[in-house]
């Protein structure tokens, strides 16, 4: 594999890792607060749809982004209502949300646009366009670093950089602020937070809300940055991969970045079976490359890459007891 191909693949990796990373960090906030969320997929999908729809109608991608976040937040609220307020089963709520998003997006899209569950194609200001970082063009010819800067680092949409910035931000919030301390505590032992005079319900809703915002950005990225419009089921299992990455990352922000880059790379790889064949020296089955992230997830879960211990109060509704 030559340098240019490598850069191309890493470039694709970054693009494909971005929605995973946003969803993964979304899951991180939620699960760190003790709310498991397999509904990431559905939230992304809903956000993808509404962001594309609003962007298409208004021609303004920022309004689209807001709308996407709103859609995701509504589903987050449903999840919060089910799993925090009514102490329902978080997994089932997540499954239901995934279904709901899969169905509603198409039903509404069809009713609004009558294009078979799609939104119109977005163009111009209705989508996020790549931004050239300063001096990218000028430095392009500097050996090694030039192409890396020009090809790999520069030329992504703003949301890619946002996603990358959210990683240190997440770390800072979780480990350097009062809110972070409380959020982590509520995922480990909500009773401790409750008796310390802080509202468990409020904290968990806050976490689920942040999860909604991040999923919303992830979905908007899919429909308005990575693509130019919504098509049905466009989240294509990314929510589940993000969950797997979260486990891989042991619920830590920096590891989440690495895990998502790895999964992004695997996805990039499955698109470039030719490169894979070149590198390993024989033709690799396409289906195998496609399911590699899933297989890898199982391998990780099997603990061959180190045991991941989830937040202790995760998945359980908080019921007061002495």
């Amino acid at each position: 594999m030559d340098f240019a191909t490598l850069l191309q693949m890493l470039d694709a990796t970054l693009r494909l890792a971005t929605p995973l990373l946003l969803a993964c960090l979304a899951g991180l906030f939620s699960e760190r607060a003790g709310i498991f969320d397999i509904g990431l997929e559905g939230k992304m999908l809903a956000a993808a749809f509404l962001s594309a729809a609003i962007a298409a109608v208004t021609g303004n991608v920022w309004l689209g982004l807001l709308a996407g976040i709103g859609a995701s937040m509504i589903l987050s609220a449903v999840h919060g209502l089910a799993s925090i307020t009514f102490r329902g089963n978080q997994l089932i709520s997540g499954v239901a949300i995934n279904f709901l998003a899969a169905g509603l997006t198409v039903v509404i899209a069809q009713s609004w646009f009558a294009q078979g569950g799609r939104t119109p194609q977005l163009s111009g200001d209705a989508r996020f366009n790549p931004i050239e970082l300063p001096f990218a063009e000028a430095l392009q010819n500097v050996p090694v670093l030039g192409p890396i800067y020009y090809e790999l680092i520069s030329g992504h949409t703003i949301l890619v950089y946002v996603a990358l910035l959210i990683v240190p931000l997440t770390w800072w919030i979780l480990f350097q602020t009062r809110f972070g301390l409380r959020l982590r505590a509520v995922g480990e032992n909500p009773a401790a937070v409750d008796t310390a005079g802080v509202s468990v319900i409020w904290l968990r809703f806050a976490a689920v809300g942040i999860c909604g915002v991040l999923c919303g950005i992830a979905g908007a990225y899919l429909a308005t940055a990575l693509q130019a419009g919504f098509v049905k089921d466009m989240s294509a299992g990314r929510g589940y991969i993000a969950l797997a990455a979260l486990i891989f990352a042991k619920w830590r922000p920096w590891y989440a970045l690495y895990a998502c880059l790895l999964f992004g790379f695997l996805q990039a790889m499955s698109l470039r079976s030719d490169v894979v064949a070149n590198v390993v020296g024989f033709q690799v089955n396409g289906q195998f490359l496609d399911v590699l992230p899933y297989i890898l997830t199982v391998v990780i879960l099997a603990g061959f890459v180190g045991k991941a211990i989830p937040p202790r109060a995760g998945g359980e509704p908080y019921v007061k007891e002495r």
Partner: protein
Amino acid sequence: DPAILFDLGGKFDKSFNESAYNGAERWATETGGSYAEVEIQSDAQREQAIRRFAESGANPIVMAGFSWATPLAEVAADYPDTKFAIIDMVVDAPNVRSVVFNEHEGSYLVGMMAAMASESGTVSFVGGMDIPLIRKFACGYAQGAMAVNPDVTVIANMTGTTPAAWNDPVKGSELTLAQISQGSDVVFAAAGGTGVGVLQTAADEDILSIGVDANQNYLHPGEVLTSMLKRVDNAVYEAFTQGTDLETGFNVMGIANEGVGYALDEFNAELVTADMQAAVDAAAASIASGELVVHDYTADETCPALSF
């Protein structure tokens, strides 16, 4: 009244099903007639849908997509007085008209155009689900490209192996980017909804793209080289027009009877040079006359010009 049954992609897929839909609509506006239609929800409903329409008295009943063959073969005999037409597959029954297309011929033509338009000498293909039908497209495309430039490199990628591959524009777009990085500057998408992503990315990256089934030139004016037309609309229109007197039997739509072809309109007029047009039209003529035979992948599941 006639009825039409769409395949799982849905009638607004911008390509195959939409083309069928357009045919039906054309008939409706021209004749003022009305027709029944359904987009099924799952494979299990195919037989159900055919039966329900047959029993409600719809005639003829046209179905778009090869997947209808099995249920139709089952049902056709139960409704001897109803005429059926199926597109993309052959069903051998006295009351069925089977319409198949020589996609490899159309693909050959656009393959030629791709190779002529390419400056890099590399052209590419993005298929939807990896099934023989799509390989047939790819194989014809590669043959056409090689016919004008024996040294051309043809990159072919399939989006996936599940039906989801028809609807994964993200992957279509990434595949296109990958192909661009390998030097491709013309990409042909035969991938249903996934093709939307392919065409979009090609436009974003300023390379040429080729649409499929319906005329997709309008999607990105000036950036879509042409579209490989598969006149599903004609097939539907014709069936509707013949009505209850539908002529049954085997019906091949190739270049010869304008069943396949390439699209030329105001959106791509500037892209298609006179040379190009001449060469393609000549090839079309010799295919029509039988002088030139394009290899059909599905005949023996091999391709002389491309290895999958």
